């Protein structure tokens, strides 16, 4: 009898120890934990923490030696038993990518409504190349400043000149001779004196999330947004509009969706108004965070210098539309079969032949303003620049960003980047990116990450085993940091 009691005490203690271990791993009392996923994957019993790689048609694990990314982007989930404040992502990979896809980035979903990702670089072969061909003014940790020639010997002098808005060998405007990568650079923008400002009303409906620059001359300002909730999708469709200046929030408003499960499919209209009398003159960035169920029907602005950043989705079904842009290339996609057809970019036509597919058009070496002619709207236009609905609205106060189409021309004299080069061990490279998880989206205990290779595409109908351009992931490691149990208790 005594023996039986002893046996029971032993297995109950063992069970208590197992439960305590699971609780320890749930609470993570020291605030730090690392989760890893490797290919080829060894024997493992649990579901793991890094999983749910999708969409399936963009990945291939047929040979089990690595996870092959065949098209851009690929998403995955990270399950965590609690919230963390910082993540360090380390990816080991071997690259079979061509020169047309020189950039690899990783990101974490920041905002579910607008689908915005916090993106960080893993590899940028344009910078890897320029680092050895251009003189390096700064190369410390991950901070890099390159110059076309040895214009500066001293970095303090360079930053002093940058702040004053006059750099050596930049005769016209320093915005034109700087390119940045993963580095927020806000330079003071001055509207040319000969340009006068007028009120502007945009009646072209725009669908989903957008961002735009608007220049206000100081004093009185006004922005009015008329919107429709189409109620085509089930679920919440909140609308958040935020006005910022140099990253600082000036004013924001949020409209909650009081009808998350619409049954009648009827549009619901609303209006958000912003304005005041004492705004400092300058450029403001306006972020419209909305799902694709929201259509901005009308924008009224007290200033006609208003240009959309990187993306525009005009939608009305009313036919032809002329737009203006400064982007050197555009990417066009539509979900609507009625919108298939010709698109003219800087006079050059190209055909939009399939829905749900991204089509590129590039005007090599063409800078400055260009016109886009759509035979039918309801297409998503994307590019590295700004878009506007009228020629005199177009202005770009932003610094040129290095993207996959970047090639250093005569204008660019300086490059500023926050980028750590990947380490190389034989054929396998290792790149690291840090993410701030404090305000990112987490649902059902999961963060959504992505790995992006801009420009990597699968040809429709192509067999996965025939693809020659791909990125093969060998290991994904996520080191997470957060508050410790003691900080939580005693704070």
């Amino acid at each position, binding site marked *: 009898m005594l023996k039986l009691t002893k046996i029971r005490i032993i297995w109950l203690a063992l069970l208590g120890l197992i439960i305590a271990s699971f609780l320890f791993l749930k609470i993570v009392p020291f605030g730090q934990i690392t989760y890893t996923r490797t290919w080829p994957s060894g024997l493992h019993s649990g*579901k793991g923490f890094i999983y749910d790689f999708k969409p399936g048609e963009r990945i291939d694990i047929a040979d089990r030696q690595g996870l092959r990314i065949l098209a851009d982007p690929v998403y995955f989930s990270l399950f965590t038993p609690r919230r963390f404040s910082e993540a360090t992502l380390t990816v080991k990979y071997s690259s079979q990518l061509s020169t047309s896809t020189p950039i690899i980035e990783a990101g974490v979903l920041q905002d579910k409504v607008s689908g915005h990702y916090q993106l960080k670089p893993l590899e940028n072969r344009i910078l890897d190349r320029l680092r050895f061909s251009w003189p390096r003014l700064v190369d410390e940790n991950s901070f890099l400043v390159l110059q076309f020639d040895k214009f500066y010997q001293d970095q303090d002098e360079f930053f002093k000149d940058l702040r004053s808005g006059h750099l050596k060998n930049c005769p016209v405007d320093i915005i034109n001779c700087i390119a940045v990568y993963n580095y927020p650079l806000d330079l003071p923008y001055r509207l040319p004196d000969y340009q006068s400002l007028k009120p502007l009303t945009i009646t072209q409906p725009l669908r989903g999330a957008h961002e735009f620059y608007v220049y206000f001359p100081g004093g009185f300002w006004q922005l009015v947004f008329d919107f429709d909730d189409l109620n085509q999708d089930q679920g919440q469709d909140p609308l958040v509009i935020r006005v910022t200046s140099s990253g600082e929030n000036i004013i924001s408003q949020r409209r909650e969706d009081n009808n998350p499960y619409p049954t009648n499919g009827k549009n619901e209209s609303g209006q958000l108004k912003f304005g005041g009398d004492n705004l400092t003159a300058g450029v403001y960035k306006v972020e419209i965070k909305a799902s694709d169920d929201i259509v901005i029907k009308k924008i009224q602005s007290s200033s006609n210098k208003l240009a959309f950043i990187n993306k525009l989705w005009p939608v009305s079904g009313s036919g032809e539309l002329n737009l203006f842009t400064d982007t050197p290339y555009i990417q066009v996609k539509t979900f609507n079969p009625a919108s298939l057809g010709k698109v003219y970019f800087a006079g050059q036509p190209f055909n939009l032949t399939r829905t749900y597919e991204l089509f590129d058009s590039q005007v090599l070496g063409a800078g400055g303003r260009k016109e886009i002619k759509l035979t039918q709207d309801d297409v998503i236009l994307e590019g590295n620049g700004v878009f506007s609905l009228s020629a005199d609205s177009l202005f770009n106060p932003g610094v040129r960003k290095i993207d996959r189409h970047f090639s250093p021309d005569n204008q660019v004299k300086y490059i500023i980047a926050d980028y750590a080069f990947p380490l190389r061990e034989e054929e396998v490279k290792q790149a690291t990116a840090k993410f701030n998880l404090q305000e990112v989206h987490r649902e059902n205990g999961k963060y959504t990450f992505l790995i992006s290779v801009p420009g990597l595409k699968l040809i429709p109908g192509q067999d996965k085993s025939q693809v020659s351009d791909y990125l093969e992931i060998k290991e994904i490691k996520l080191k997470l940091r957060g508050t410790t149990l003691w900080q939580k208790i005693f704070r």
Partner: protein
Amino acid sequence: MAKNLSLKKRIIYQELFYFFSVALALFIVLEIIWPNIILAYFNLNYLVVFWLLSALGQLFKK
């Protein structure tokens, strides 16, 4: 002697069955309270198999 050995075996199967039953119940409760806390590390199907084997073992020993 043989009878003693058989009794010992029966006790072991019985205790194993109790152990797996309590473990399974606790893990399911924990999984309901905090989803994925167990499944991320350990597939409960394995435990169900062991639990069934111990239950069958106990039945046959009886």
